[in-house]
Each structure stands twice: as structure tokens, then as C-alpha cells.
């Protein structure tokens, strides 16, 4: 039996006429990174808010570490941390003061505060900015500080609501690195994102949410296999060579001129065979292009399917 830390059963939530969640079911294993992937308005933030006790679900049961978030929110609050959609740090305080304040609110002893603030500032590369007011921080630094604050209480589960939205590429990469390191230390991470590459890169398991329902669930590879196989594109110098090659290797015409496209699940094997055949027949290949299905394909595929329903 695997160790489930977050379990959600048939969660629903409605704001007025709008049904935001229409029965969400999810399970997250302890110590993994779980990504909830969806467009704006799909129900990601609402799910996180229910799990982090900020709002109550209309129906359904959500448990964290076996504790019902609706019945014992105070107990749940002790084992979770929430990093909201915006870096929720105090701009007028310095980075260090922000952390010390939160440490006090978590009722840590002065000694605990001193040591963990220092080691977290270090871990997130914020030591040199520790005494600056947060209003002078860059977006990336704010997010890092926010994340560092979340770790003060040594939570079992960390909720990250769109942790890299609005960050520049470099900060994004360093944020990803930090998140991966956290997971190595055994924290369960529940993140929401609208970026497929983010889910692909970080998550052990991904659920695609659309219109308040989970439309697909699995590892990145499992999701990709839903859309299909890898494609191999071979581009040749001219029409003549292309026709000759297609007689030998089959395939279809590609989108670009003089391209021949093959599909396969064993793309490496096929590539070697094809290149061998072409080489033996003295047909020179100008360019080879291997395209794996991306989560974008999955996303378009699954959300389109749920629209059709």
C-alpha cells in the first residue's frame, strides 16, 4: 500500500451560479511532487484554497495526512504551508524581518528562529539581500523569500500556487531547482501551474484539470503516450532524393519541403535503421528531426475532448 498524504474525494464548490469544482478526485503520495495543470479559471486555485483551509468545499472530503480539512482546520494548518499566487511577503520589512516575523507566528523559539532563518536565507541565496527592504527585491527574490518562509515551520505538505507565474526565465530555472531540492528532503509538494513544461520538468505525477474536473491523470510519460508516438522527420536536398527515399523507407510527406515523416514508439531503433538504409543507397540526409509529443499536445488533446463532451 502506498503512502497517500493528500486524498480528495468528490470535491465540489460553487460561487453563486458558477460551479467551480464539479467533483474532483485526487490522491497524492507522500514525498512526491504533484502538479495540477490547467488554464486560468479551471479550478486550480480553488482546489488549493480548500486544501489549505482558506475556504470550505460545498461537498466532498479532503484529507491531509488523514485529517479532514473541513473538520479540523487547525490541525491541518500545523502540517501545511501555503505559498500563494502572488509573493505574499511584506514589502516594508526586510527579508530577514519577514522571516523572523513568520517564525514568531509559528511560535518557534528565538534560537530556532535564528538558526533556521540563517540556513534558509543561505539555502535560497538571499543572505546578501537579507537586510534590504523587500520592496527593492526582484520578482524572483520575492518568490524565493516566500518559499523560504513556507519552510520555516517544516511542513509536511507545501502548496505552491503558480510558483513561477510572471518570473523571468533565469529566476524560473532557479525556482525549479529549489523546488526539486525540497522534494528530495521529503516534503510533499502540491503545485499548480498553467505551464506544461513546468509540470513536465518537476512533477512525479500530473493531473490535468479543466472546467472543474480532472480530465487526465498520470506521469508525464503516461500522459504523452495518450497522444501518441514520436515522429521522425528526414529532410533531403531535392524532390528527386525525397521521392527515392520515400520508396525505400515509406512514410508521409512532412510540413516542410522535401521532408519525409515516420512515426514510431521505438524512435531510436527506427532512426538507426532508416539512416542505414539511406546510407546503403547513397541517399544523403540534410536534416533529421525527432519530435516527442509534448504536454502541450496532451493538454490540447484532453481539454478539447472535454469540450466535446
Amino acid at each position, binding site marked *: 500500500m502506498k503512502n497517500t498524504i493528500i486524498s480528495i474525494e468528490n470535491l465540489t464548490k460553487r460561487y453563486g451560479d458558477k460551479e467551480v469544482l464539479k467533483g474532483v478526485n485526487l490522491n497524492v503520495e507522500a514525498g512526491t511532487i504533484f502538479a495540477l495543470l490547467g488554464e486560468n479559471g479551471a479550478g486550480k486555485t480553488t482546489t488549493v*484554497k480548500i486544501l*489549505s*483551509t*482558506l*475556504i470550505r468545499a460545498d461537498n466532498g472530503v479532503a484529507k491531509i495526512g488523514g485529517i479532514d480539512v473541513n473538520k479540523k482546520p*487547525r490541525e491541518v*494548518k*500545523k502540517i*501545511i*504551508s*501555503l*505559498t*500563494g*499566487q*502572488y*509573493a*505574499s*511577503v*511584506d*514589502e*516594508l*520589512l526586510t527579508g530577514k*524581518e519577514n522571516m523572523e*516575523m*513568520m517564525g*514568531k*507566528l*509559528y*511560535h518557534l523559539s528565538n534560537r530556532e528562529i535564528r538558526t533556521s532563518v540563517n540556513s534558509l536565507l543561505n539555502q535560497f541565496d538571499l543572505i546578501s539581500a537579507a537586510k534590504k*527592504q523587500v520592496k527593492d527585491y526582484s520578482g524572483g527574490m520575492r518568490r524565493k523569500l516566500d518559499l523560504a*518562509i513556507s519552510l520555516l*515551520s517544516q511542513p509536511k505538505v507545501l502548496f505552491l500556487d503558480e510558483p513561477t507565474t510572471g518570473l523571468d526565465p533565469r529566476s524560473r530555472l532557479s525556482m525549479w531547482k529549489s523546488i526539486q531540492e525540497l522534494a528530495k528532503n521529503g516534503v510533499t509538494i502540491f503545485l499548480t501551474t498553467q505551464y506544461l513544461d513546468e509540470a513536465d520538468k518537476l512533477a512525479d505525477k500530473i493531473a490535468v484539470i479543466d472546467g472543474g474536473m480532472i480530465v487526465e491523470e498520470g506521469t508525464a510519460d503516461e500522459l504523452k503516450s495518450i497522444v501518441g508516438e514520436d515522429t521522425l522527420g528526414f529532410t533531403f536536398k531535392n524532390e528527386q532524393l525525397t521521392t527515392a527515399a520515400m520508396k525505400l523507407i515509406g512514410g508521409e510527406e512532412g510540413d516542410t519541403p522535401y521532408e519525409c515523416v515516420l512515426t514510431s514508439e521505438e524512435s531510436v531503433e527506427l532512426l538507426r535503421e532508416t539512416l542505414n538504409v539511406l546510407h546503403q543507397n547513397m541517399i544523403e540526409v540534410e536534416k533529421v528531426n525527432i519530435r516527442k509529443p509534448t504536454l502541450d499536445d496532451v493538454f490540447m488533446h484532453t481539454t478539447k475532448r472535454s469540450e466535446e463532451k
Partner: protein
Amino acid sequence: MMRYWVMDSWTMTQRQVKHLFRNLDSLFISIALPVMMMLLFVYVFGGAIETGMDYVNFVVPSVIVMCVGQTCVFPATGIAEDKTKGIFDRLRSMPIHSSTLLIGQVNGNIIRNIVSTSLVMGVAMLIGFRPSAGLIEWIAILSILLLLVVSLSWLSIIFGLMASSVEVASSVSMIFLFLPYLSDGFVPVDTMPSVLKSIARHQPFTPLINALRALMLGLPIENNLWLTVSWFVPILFISMAFASTMVKGIKK
């Protein structure tokens, strides 16, 4: 449990004090308006208004009340800012009592008012304000001002909790700034048209300003002290109860 509540309230108060002294511009803006009004009334309009006493002595109590009104917009905007920036959500996801967030705002505002009221009072003295209050009267004056600050702060917090943005929250200042004008504060109520007169006679700021003025200048206080208390104590407790319930149930 109680110990944590006190500790958390203290932590949140410290935060507000840091805000206060790192955001001095906004503190000075909130002092500048009442001071300018005071100078305007004393030097420009004062000569034309017949109050039966030195106009500066007449107007200072209402200027102080206006100054308190002006600074009491900060709890509303502070709460609204924490709400829109996500700090509120983060704090609410932590195992702390949500009312401590509000207590921090109220305590911070008391300290802010000590600073601003002292400064306004200082300027008033410079332009000739001469109060005749003794020790007991000053204790009464400060108690009334404290009651005013605390009750307006809680009222202000309700606006902050309801508002969808900082701008909307700041509109609470309309009430706090407008009502003192509709009182005995700047011109005697008797000079107003009859409709306004009856509004002015029956609103909380009129007995408040009259009580302050009586205490500061040694005039007969009549029933103004009791009227003030019976207005502001209920305002305080109702706002407090309302705000504490609201903060628990915020949905978005």
C-alpha cells in the same frame, strides 16, 4: 492558547510599528491636511466666524478629531493591501488566531495617532492655542481620544475587509472626514440651515467635539461626555464583533 494570542497580537503590532516608521510620507500627509485646514480656518475664515471666543481655541478640538479621522483610514487600507497581496491568505493558512491580524492594525493605529496628534497639538500651540485643562481633564481628553481612535479603527477594519481594493478601502475616509464638518467643530451649529442643524445635533462627532472643547477650555461640559460614550462605545463593540466574525468567514 491565550498566551499565543497575546504573543501573536504583539508580533502583528510590531509589524505595524515598523510600517509606520518606514512609511513616514503617508503619516505626514495625514497630518498635513488637518494642519492646513487649521491654518486656513484660523487665519482665513476665523475672523468672519463669530464663536464668542478666540477662534483658534474654538477650532483646535475639531482639527484633532479630523486628524484622528484622517489616520483611521490606515487600518482599512492596510487590511485591504494585505488581502490583495496574498499576505492575508498566507496568515490565515497558518495556525494563528485570525483576530490577531486585526489587533495588530488597531494597536499600530493607536501608536500612529499618538505621533500625529502630538504633532498637530504642537502646531496648534505655536499658533496660539492655549488650553486651560488640568491633569484630570487631560486624562479625560486622552481617554476620549483613545476611545475615538479604537472605535474608528475597528470600523475602518470592516471597510478594509469588505473592500475589493486598497482604493475602495480608502473611501472610508469620506465618512471620517465629512462628519466632523457637520458638527459644532468649525462653525456653531446654530448658523446652519434647519435640516443640517438637526443632522449635526444628532451625530456622534458633535458631542465628541463639544466634550473635548469643554474639557480643554474649562467650559461647562453638560451631557456631552455621556453622549460621546453612548455613541462610541456601541460603535466600538459592534464593529469589533462584526470585524472578528468577518475575518473568519472571508471566502475569496
